[in-house]
């Protein structure tokens, strides 16, 4: 690669370069900062870097391929990276108050979040299996550590260890799939793989590789049957970490999933379609039924996220432009809802007990804190998919795509699962509004109130602002076709 080509590539990948260099600078600042202030200083700077990168991407970023086609920057990657960065920024900002209250003062936490975000951006921009795997490992390794960061808590270390072991297993399976795909097509670039699969007769080896590849991808978005880690990790990890897990990595992994199957395996759509349909149905059903018995709200959100990934995959299984557009809109709305809900969970704080996580603790919240109760009610109605809130439109777009692609059974099962799922969202609302008060929460920190307010307004006002978002999502999806 010549020097001009390299500098062109680096310019295109400038957001990633800034994140990598920024993380290293932050590491130095964290080491030499006075012990008491290291976390808050580094958190502030990390948020500033992430916002800077987001601004650069939205205003200045170019489009094209870099590093001999290993890295691609297009409309789709710009949209999904925006979502990922918003997830990281909000999760990091929400961790600041938690860190103050819980004496959670590790300055490495924001640095690992920045590095994980770097890995996610590489995953989204991956245009070859090698980039995909390296980005994925960078992200996962940072997430394993972050899950166990509260190392004095048995639950946190258990969460980290469980995530690590299962994650390593899924990485291994994915790598096996990648090696089969490479062996049978002779390429690792998505475009070349698609070219090699066009017209040629489908070899069993490639399909085998595809199955293993999808196994690894399904693990990362926590889709059934590779979801086992999710409830334990969500429950065990410190709440700001869970908020981060629920937001940013899901966006990146879903973007990666979409790009691999559409860009790389577009010519064999009928082959992966059946796998994705199965995963989608299983995730929707498990997400709906398993959440019913949960008492811990973080566990409940874990099952809810499994279900929501299933709904998003309904859009993908259509394999069409409309389907990918549906996935993008679904992920956008899911991000807003999940960040709002986790801001609420972080605000569930009593004066004497500290942070509480049980659903019973919400009893009678409408009497003690009507504003918070109203916002959570809106978010829960939206997660359940009640019109005219955002969650309804998210499901509408993906089911529409499934129906247009002729996948009627999938759409019907999806609607039925969302009816079942509505039960546990409505149960939370019932506990808040109709049960005897169990004592109020201390006033929430400013950043949490801001996040709750913005996400509540987004969900409520989606009917009004949905048009431009759908148009942008369609333009982003067009980059893949």
């Amino acid at each position, binding site marked *: 690669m010549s020097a001009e080509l390299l500098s062109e590539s680096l310019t295109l*990948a400038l957001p990633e370069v800034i994140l990598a260099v920024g993380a290293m600078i932050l590491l130095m600042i964290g080491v030499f900062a006075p012990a008491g202030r290291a976390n808050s200083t580094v958190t502030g700077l990390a948020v500033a870097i992430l916002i800077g990168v987001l601004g650069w991407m939205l205003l200045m970023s170019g489009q094209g391929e870099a*590093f001999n086609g290993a890295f691609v920057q297009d409309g789709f990657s710009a949209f999904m990276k925006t979502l990922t960065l918003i997830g990281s920024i909000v999760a990091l900002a929400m961790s600041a108050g938690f860190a103050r209250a819980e004496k959670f003062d590790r300055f490495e936490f924001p640095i690992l979040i920045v590095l994980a975000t770097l890995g996610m951006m590489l995953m989204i921009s991956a245009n070859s299996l090698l980039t995909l795997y*390296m980005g994925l490992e960078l992200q996962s390794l940072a997430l394993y550590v972050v899950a166990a960061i509260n190392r004095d808590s048995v639950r946190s270390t258990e969460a980290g260890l469980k995530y690590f072991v299962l994650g390593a297993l899924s990485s291994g399976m994915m790598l096996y799939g990648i090696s089969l795909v490479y062996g049978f097509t002779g390429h690792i670039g998505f475009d070349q793989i698609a070219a090699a699969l066009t017209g040629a007769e489908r070899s069993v080896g490639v399909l085998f590789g595809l199955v293993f590849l999808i196994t690894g991808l399904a693990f990362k978005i926590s889709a059934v049957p590779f979801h086992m880690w999710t409830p334990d990790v969500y429950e065990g990890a410190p709440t700001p970490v869970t908020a981060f897990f629920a937001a940013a990595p899901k966006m990146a992994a879903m973007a990666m999933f979409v790009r691999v199957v559409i860009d790389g395996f577009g010519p064999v759509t009928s082959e992966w379609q059946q796998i994705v349909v199965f995963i989608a149905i299983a995730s929707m059903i498990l997400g709906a039924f398993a959440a019913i018995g949960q008492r811990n709200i973080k566990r409940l959100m874990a099952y809810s996220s499994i279900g929501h990934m299933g709904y998003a995959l309904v859009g993908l299984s259509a394999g069409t432009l409309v389907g990918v557009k549906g996935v993008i809109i679904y992920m956008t709305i899911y991000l807003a809802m999940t960040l709002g809900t986790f801001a609420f969970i972080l605000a569930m704080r009593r004066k004497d007990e500290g942070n509480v996580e049980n659903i019973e603790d919400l009893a009678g919240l409408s009497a003690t804190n009507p504003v918070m109760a109203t916002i959570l009610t809106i978010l829960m109605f939206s997660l359940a998919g009640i019109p005219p809130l955002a969650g309804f439109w998210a499901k509408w777009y993906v089911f529409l795509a499934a129906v247009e692609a002729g996948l009627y059974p999938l759409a019907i099962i999806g609607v039925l699962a969302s009816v079942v799922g509505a039960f546990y969202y409505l149960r939370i609302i019932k506990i808040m509004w109709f049960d005897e008060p169990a004592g109020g929460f201390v006033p929430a920190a400013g950043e949490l109130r801001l996040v709750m307010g913005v996400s509540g307004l987004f969900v409520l006002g989606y009917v009004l602002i949905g048009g431009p978002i759908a148009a942008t999502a369609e333009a982003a999806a067009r980059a893949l076709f």
Partner: protein
Amino acid sequence: MITGLGAAFFYLFAFVAVASAFMVIAARNPVHSVLYLILTFFNAAALFLLTGAEFLSMILLVVYIGAVAVLFLFVVMMLDVDFASMKRGALEYAPIGAIVGVVLGAELVLVLAASAFDLGRPATTSLPMPDPAVRHNTAALGDILYTDYVFFFQIAGIVLLVAMIGAIVLTLRPQRPHVKRQNMAAQVARKPADAIEVVDVDTGKGI
């Protein structure tokens, strides 16, 4: 086919490699096992050298012998693992071992048969490799590793950085008492006069 002196060395290294590999599992003393393992690695490195893969050969020496095997040796010597009792039931698993051996043997025959009868190669393209006579393979690897694959090389570096940060985050406890840390200011401020005392010792008396 290799002939002449090359063949003689090939059979020498191959024989020693197989024999020492057998000794790794047969040796009674675990430290001897590790030493045999190192001998196996040495011979494998020599075999790589014979085929002209000098980079792989040197990496094998540096990584496997310099780091991995020495680490094994430390673990074996430091941990009090009772290998004798672990080995006691080993013969029970002999039938399973035999089955695995038969499967591997069958695969070997299949591969050999396939290459002898040429059952058709996969229609794949491999990366072009320069002639070893023109450009030896360490340089050839460097040519593409630091140009075409520099992106992956750098990401791999960042992955390692994350691993390092993770190990430190999960194990370092700076607040714990009795941790002796380096104090550079104290080290620098120390003068010879504070540290050295000249004593005139009478013969036969001691201090």
